[in-house]
């Protein structure tokens, strides 16, 4: 009865005998995946990447990455007879003369925006739940590499059509290359094959965009997935969830179907955007000439924070031994990117150094339960977000009637003050949420039942929280603190004697100390009267 039909059995035996897939599948098809909405965020990036590969291949059929001058004779009348590069003419050809070309271009571009967006929200989820901790630090580093490469892929991609807007981005890229001390000019000449803009950069970017970076991305994405598979997915704290098990649904059939459905959702949303929302209308920008520039020239969103940094930077410049160091370009190009990317890459190791935590972690943290980490994360997001916002300061100024220089000065101050305020607010919120959790565990939840006591007092009956909620709260795990107390003779432990050691011990104290320990049940006498309603007898009445 259970024997598979011959057509299937024959083929599967054939395959199994030769590559031994049966055992592999048997072991892996039932792999358990935990269920939480935030675990699907990375898939937005994964599926956008698949769509990018498919639509990108379509676009290569017609795109000509040349900078030779041609005269446009295509269907778009306001550019008829205008001289332009081959690249721009072929991008116009795709948009107006290839069937489905514009739709494919738009889907490709929207997918690119969502690719980086999906990576970003996925990365934030990993960060705030501490899912980068041992043993997943390497996968975290791979993720940071993926994000950095995606930025580079985006930069090379939006330069390709050689329209006026992409040219503005190219010009900034060249400015950044030139601002590198000593070698800057050489780097620029090497990249552009001579004087800017030259005749080489589009074809070079094309090779990088369609061959080199996608290849590395594909390899790293595979490594990312394999590592995730081997190390197993983290799970949120809850009933019966421990560091030694994974509670969830098997890959086949449950997770596979959910995952497949989510691919269709991703594809659907991107297709809808590609159909109904115009993106990168290169025909409106016109062909690139280095002499022209448009108001409101912005990069795609993921470069916005760099644009903002450049706009906020005062025009500092130093001359040293006949070399000009253009700090006004060098600092905004390198410092925010360095803070964000290097900071992210090093964070797991910094955290380990401060807490001395060498344990393996498979249960994710709730963000509130590590208030300093959450505050650092929100602080970083505020820094990034303010730079990002101020990257659009001309559009903000034009559309909301603000003074342009006021926005610049606001940004210059806010970019330092904002993260500090965000840190403090987030920290207080985390502590407040922890207190709420502790209260739910120790006093129960409000039942809505008012009870009159024999002495005339009214109280509201509290009931214990639902089991899953209680278990979710109890999943809080202590953060280790480095031993720094002096021994009997007033000598601190070995690691905490130097200045760095003392600082480390102090940071460890601040980072790890649990300010709101959870207490189960109703232990404190002082609360007895206030919440007299909590007790076995009352619970019985409620059921």
């Amino acid at each position, binding site marked *: 009865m259970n024997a598979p039909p011959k057509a299937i059995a024959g083929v599967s035996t054939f395959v199994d005998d030769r590559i031994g897939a049966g055992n592999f599948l048997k072991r892996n098809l039932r792999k358990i995946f935990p269920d939480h909405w935030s675990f699907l965020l990375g898939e937005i990036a994964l599926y956008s990447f698949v769509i990018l590969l498919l639509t990108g291949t379509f676009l290569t059929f017609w795109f000509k990455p040349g900078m030779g001058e041609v005269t446009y004779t295509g269907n778009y009348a306001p550019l008829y007879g205008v001289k332009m590069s081959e690249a721009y003419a072929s991008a116009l050809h795709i948009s107006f003369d290839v069937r489905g070309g514009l739709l494919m271009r738009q889907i490709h571009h929207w997918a690119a925006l969502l690719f980086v967006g999906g990576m970003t*929200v996925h990365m934030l989820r990993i960060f705030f739940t501490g899912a980068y901790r041992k043993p997943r630090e390497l996968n975290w580093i791979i993720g940071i590499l993926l994000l950095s490469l995606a930025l580079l892929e985006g930069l090379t991609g939006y330069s390709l059509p050689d329209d006026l807007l992409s040219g503005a981005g190219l010009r900034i890229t060249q400015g950044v290359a030139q601002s590198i001390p000593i070698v800057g000019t050489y780097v620029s000449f090497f990249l552009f094959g001579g004087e800017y803009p030259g005749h080489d950069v589009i074809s070079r970017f094309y090779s990088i965009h369609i061959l080199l970076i996608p290849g590395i991305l594909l390899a790293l994405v595979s490594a990312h997935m394999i590592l995730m598979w081997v190390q197993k997915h983290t799970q949120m704290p809850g009933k019966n969830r421990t560091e030694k098990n994974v509670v969830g649904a098997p890959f086949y059939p449950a997770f596979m179907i959910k995952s497949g459905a989510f691919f269709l959702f991703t594809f659907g949303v991107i297709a809808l955007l590609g159909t109904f929302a115009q993106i990168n209308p290169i025909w409106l920008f016109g062909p690139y000439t280095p002499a022209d520039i448009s108001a409101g020239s912005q990069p795609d969103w993921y470069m916005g924070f760099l644009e903002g940094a450049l706009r906020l930077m005062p025009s500092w410049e130093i001359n040293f031994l006949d070399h000009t160091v253009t700090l006004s370009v060098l600092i905004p190009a390198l410092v925010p990117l360095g803070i964000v990317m290097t900071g992210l890459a090093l964070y797991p190791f910094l955290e380990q150094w401060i807490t001395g935590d060498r344990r393996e972690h498979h249960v994710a943290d709730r963000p509130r339960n590590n208030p300093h980490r959450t505050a650092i994360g929100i602080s970083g997001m505020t820094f990034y977000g303010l730079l990002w916002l101020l990257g659009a300061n001309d559009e903000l100024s034009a559309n909301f009637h603000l003074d342009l220089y006021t926005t610049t000065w606001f940004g210059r101050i806010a970019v330092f003050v904002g993260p500090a305020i965000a840190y403090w607010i987030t920290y207080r919120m985390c502590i407040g949420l922890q207190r709420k959790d502790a209260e739910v565990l120790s006093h129960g939840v409000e039942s809505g039942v008012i009870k009159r006591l024999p002495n005339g007092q009214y109280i509201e009956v509290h009931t214990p929280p639902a089991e899953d909620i209680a278990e979710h709260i109890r999943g809080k795990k202590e953060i280790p603190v480095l031993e720094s107390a002096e021994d009997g003779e007033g000598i601190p432990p070995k690691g905490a004697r130097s200045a760095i050691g003392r600082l480390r011990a102090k940071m460890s104290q601040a980072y790890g100390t649990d300010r709101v320990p959870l207490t189960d049940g109703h232990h404190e006498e002082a609360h007895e009267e206030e919440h007299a309603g909590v007790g076995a007898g009352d619970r019985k009445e409620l059921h």
Partner: protein
Amino acid sequence: MIGTGISVNSITARRRHPLARVAVVALALGLLGGGYALAAPNGSTADAAIASGKADDVAQGKSLFVAHCASCHGMNAEGTKKAPTLIGVGAAAVNFQVSSGRMPAADAGPQAPRKPRAEWATDEAVDQLSAYVQSLGGGPTVPSAEQVDPAKGDPAKGGELFRANCIQCHNFVGAGGALTYGKYAPPLNPATPTQIYEAMATGPQAMPVFNDSTITPEQKRDMIAYITHVRSQVDPGGSGLGRIGPVTEGLVAWVVGLSLLILASIWITAKKRRAA
């Protein structure tokens, strides 16, 4: 009410009718509107007067000037601390500023915004005012209908000139942009072809002058052809998102794209297998 056959009592009674108030308001509005329509100046007769080149346009213009402009620009357009002299600015400047509602200025801001015309500023009044200012010291004149006819221009040539001269402030499709100290380059969408020409010829507010030796009248017409062609063009890729470039695209990617996908992920994971 002797002799009318209507008794005072019956009027008093009707006065208290529930619909009486409505009737009175309707009557008052009708009288006011009708009276205004009769009293308001009629455009077609004015055109005839201009065409015949009546000398009293200048005189009419002067009286308009004294009534509406002189408080800032001086009784003889010589300028005051508040506003510059208008001697030599030409009819084109007056036509641009007053027909676009920028003048008379509402208040002293960094820049006079485009707004609905003043009530008195009919086409005839604007022409009279222009004639008066033109008579003071010459200057650029109002272009003819042919000079600003988009159909006679070459939009492709105009586009190249537009990109070389205009978009650094007005954005690549004339959606407008920010300038320093609260000033801005306004969007070109509401501007008429005549106003676009006049703006180039006179350089209003923060805008530089593009005189006929910098950009010839034919080139100006090409640019007008490009601007009007592109602004009336239906966006082939769907909603144009304000045509201001990647800022709104990024906003849509996050607010629409990622929000929808996050909602989808919440919805998918909320579906649990039911225990049999």
